[in-house]
């Protein structure tokens, strides 16, 4: 359909004089060149990491990664082959996945419950409490590191994946509650009222109506939480102990950067390939969530 409309519009474009058309295209050329250059500038670093990750380690100290385009035979899967044999790295990938999945699912459930209460349940001090929850966004997580470190030592949650998940959950909540509450408020009141009149319990309304209707917001939030927890370094560095996600595993290799590049580069590439896949698969939700968080 859209092509037909476009065709219908075409004669108008044809009326434009040839000179004007040339002027228009030429006038835009610098913009095109500039944007292509910027695009390349943004693409090259990641490409560089990918190439370095498939170079033999001695090549790293001898020649620039771009030389691989002249000598494709330098490429080898050896690094990847070895890294999947490396128990430290494989177990750290599992740990990362555990943290990211737990740190995504748990805050979404808890924030959805709270968001529903703030949006549709009636209790004294509701708006005031909601402001307090949002206000907690102000607290940088550095404020919690020392006391939680002590608490985790007492509760034996230090070095425990669950401890990391709970920390991420708590610090993900203020934004999550804010986002979901604002989304839930937009659900038409009639739907809820009629469900209540039909005798549905609040739990049922939450599970059968709110969660399905809130799916777009939940999806955005899920992507954010997933990326945030997958990419975390600081929290795991402080509370992880020997439970190391991939970021910490790479961090421990950084001291001898060139010598360990055969581990660092492929590990770093794997660690960013998953978030990138998530990003490309759910780009729309990602951008929506971003705009909900910053523009609104």
């Amino acid at each position: 359909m859209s092509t037909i409309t476009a065709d219908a519009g075409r004669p108008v474009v044809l009326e434009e004089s040839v000179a004007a058309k040339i002027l228009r295209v030429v006038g835009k050329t610098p913009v095109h060149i500039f944007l292509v250059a910027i695009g390349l500038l943004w693409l090259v670093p990641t490409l560089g990491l990918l190439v370095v990750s498939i170079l033999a380690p001695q090549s790293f100290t001898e020649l620039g990664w771009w030389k691989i385009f002249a000598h494709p035979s330098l490429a080898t899967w050896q690094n990847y082959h070895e890294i999947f044999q490396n128990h430290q790295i494989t177990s750290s990938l599992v740990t990362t996945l555990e943290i990211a999945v737990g740190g995504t699912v748990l805050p979404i459930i808890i924030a959805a419950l709270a968001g529903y209460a703030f949006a549709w349940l009636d209790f004294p001090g509701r708006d005031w409490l909601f402001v307090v929850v949002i206000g907690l966004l102000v607290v940088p997580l550095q404020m919690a590191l020392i006391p939680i470190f002590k608490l985790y030592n007492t509760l034996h949650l230090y070095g425990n994946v669950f401890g990391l998940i709970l920390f991420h959950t708590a610090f993900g909540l203020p934004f999550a509650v804010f986002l979901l509450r604002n989304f839930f408020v937009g659900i038409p009141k009639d739907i809820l009222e009629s469900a209540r009149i039909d005798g549905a319990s609040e739990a049922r309304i939450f599970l059968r109506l709110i969660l399905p209707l809130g799916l777009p917001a939940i999806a955005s939030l899920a992507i954010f939480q997933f990326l945030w927890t997958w990419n975390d370094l600081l929290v795991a560095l402080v509370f992880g102990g020997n439970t190391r996600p991939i970021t910490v595993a790479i961090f421990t290799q950084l001291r001898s950067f060139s010598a360990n590049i055969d581990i660092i580069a492929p590990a770093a590439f794997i660690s960013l390939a998953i978030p990138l896949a998530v990003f490309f698969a759910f780009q729309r939700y990602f951008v929506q969530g971003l705009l909900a968080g910053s523009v609104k």
Partner: protein
Amino acid sequence: MGGTSIAAEPPVPGAPQVAEPGRLRRYAVAGAFLAPAFVLLGVWILYPAIYTIVRSFFGQSGFNDFAGIDNYKTLFSTSAITTAIKNNAIWVAVVPALITALGLIFAVLTEKVSWAVAFKTVVFMPMAISLFAAGVIWRIMDRQEPQLGTVNAFVQVFHDMFHPPGALSDAVPSTTNVSGSTTQGFVLRKPLGAGGVALLGVTAIPPTDVPKSAVQAVAPKADPHGITGVVWRDFKPGGGTPGKVESQELGLPGVKVELRDSSGKTVQSATTASNGTFAFKDVPSGQYRAAIGASTFAKPFSGVSWLGSQLITPAIIIAYIWVWAGFAMVVIAAGLAAIPRDVLEAARTDGAGEWQVFRRVTVPLLAPVLSVVFITMIINVLKVFDIVLSVAPESSQADANVIALAMWRTAFTQFNFGLGSAIAVFLFVLVVPVLTLNVRRFRREV
């Protein structure tokens, strides 16, 4: 956790439900929905925040060691932490403005091209990558040797345009007929007039320096109106006569030869051919000296030390901008899309040029969005941490220090919880006023 809420709802058998169930029961339901969130927020954020504030007034050994504001005094007198504060000030002064400006430029320009989606995807992509991994990427890009580090390979292209590297890196004269050094150039002692032949023999040239195009050196023929000569590697395996062009001795191509007059001023210059010969034509009468110019020995570009102590913060900032520019672009582009087209059209019809439309209409209408991006970036920049750890090698981490890094160091590598708490509180105090602006906005939305 969903189970809690279900349990909190007792079945109400029989009793015909009218609109209003018991008020307490409704509160209980609300409480059940809120309880998990409040427990987590209380235990993991509220209580720790208060604890940290209190803890910051006690010394390293714990609550039996009241220190008053000593930790805060130490904070401002420890050089590692003051460096961190200074660096963070640089970050705040430079980064949010740069990122907002770049985002605006990208957003406006992409409106003019048909492949905007592809461009936005590429620039936005690093947002999905962890700052830590982005740092690893840039540490590879920022290596010093131009043949290894991508950034310096790029810089080299421009550097060589203005300061081309010399043909040779090192040499000494082969005979006493030639004097000088690599920093001043080599001069033939004997002055020459038209018809003279200059034999500039040099030796001790690193084998890797001899250009591939070099061929057997040739002793030049005299030119009655000019001065001719040869620059050659005056070295023959197994010995030879210094100062004489012999077989198996290679000419040195690409060498800059200068003809200097009696005052030492260069009047002509020439470049040697692959057999080492050069010629100055139509030399006026007088005495001249032939010399190998110092530019022949100009050092090649050795690379900007991005990861060294001087430039480490700019290097990290570049990496950080690479990550966050896409965020600014996407948010600003959304703001741009929300500007009614007819407003812009009206301005254009009134005869405003593109720049004026941008300056007088677009930017003012975008102001709220720009300020959101700017404020968000200030907060992010104040808390910057992981990317510093991954870009900066250990040797320059002290120079790259930032507040969040100093806090982690103090608390979890030196286990000074008193001072660590004070740094955390300091960070908190910096973030609060900025974030309150954002939260205020949130509230207006509510």
